[in-house]
């Protein structure tokens, strides 16, 4: 259990990596909040003007691109073992998602399962990525 907690807390990373990781986290929070606010405003009928909807979408997209750029910078400057762990986790997340959701698509096509919601795909990716990070850190600890 202690090893899993250590893997989650990522103890001992250089300060610059922690700073860059915090920057990614901050942008990710801004992105998530902007997405939630946009969705709530649209669903509640407060945001009906198509120009404003497009503007809100562009804002969310812009912040999303900023998250991706911050993450790319983190990966480039990251401690090399942690970078390998991140790449392995990303490969696991993409692989599991591709295989899992293409399998689900076949079942969905046969009308054996309900239509897949996009948030399930995103959540699946995020959870698999997090599991990949923990496995990688425990494996190399």
């Amino acid at each position, binding site marked *: 259990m202690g090893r899993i907690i250590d893997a989650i807390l990522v103890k001992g990373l*250089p300060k610059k990596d922690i700073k860059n990781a915090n920057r990614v986290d901050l942008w990710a929070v801004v992105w998530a909040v902007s997405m939630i606010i946009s969705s709530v405003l649209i669903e509640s009928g407060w945001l009906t003007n198509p120009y404003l909807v497009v503007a809100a979408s562009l804002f969310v997209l812009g912040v999303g691109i900023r998250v991706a750029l911050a993450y790319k910078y983190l990966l480039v400057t990251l401690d*090399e073992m*942690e970078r390998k762990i991140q790449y392995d986790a990303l490969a696991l997340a993409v692989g599991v998602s591709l295989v899992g959701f293409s399998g689900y698509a076949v079942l969905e096509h046969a009308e054996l399962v309900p239509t897949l919601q996009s948030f399930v795909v995103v959540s699946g990716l995020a959870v698999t990525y997090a599991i990949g990070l923990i496995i990688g850190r425990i494996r*190399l*600890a």
Partner: protein
Amino acid sequence: MINHLKQLRGQHGWTQQDLATKLDVSRQTIIAIEKGKFDPSLPLAFKMARLFKQPIESIFIDGAHSQSL
């Protein structure tokens, strides 16, 4: 890959954290390299060689090659 990092670090009286700071990597990376769980990149291996003033091949030994000899 086999390496003599732990012995070299011990000879200099450095802790794992000291070495990690000198090489600008995490302590976990030093631990993993010493245990042979992670092979460093070529730039990091050169950095270690410069730090210890030793050729790379005296710090890192190719396990597969040494077994075949």
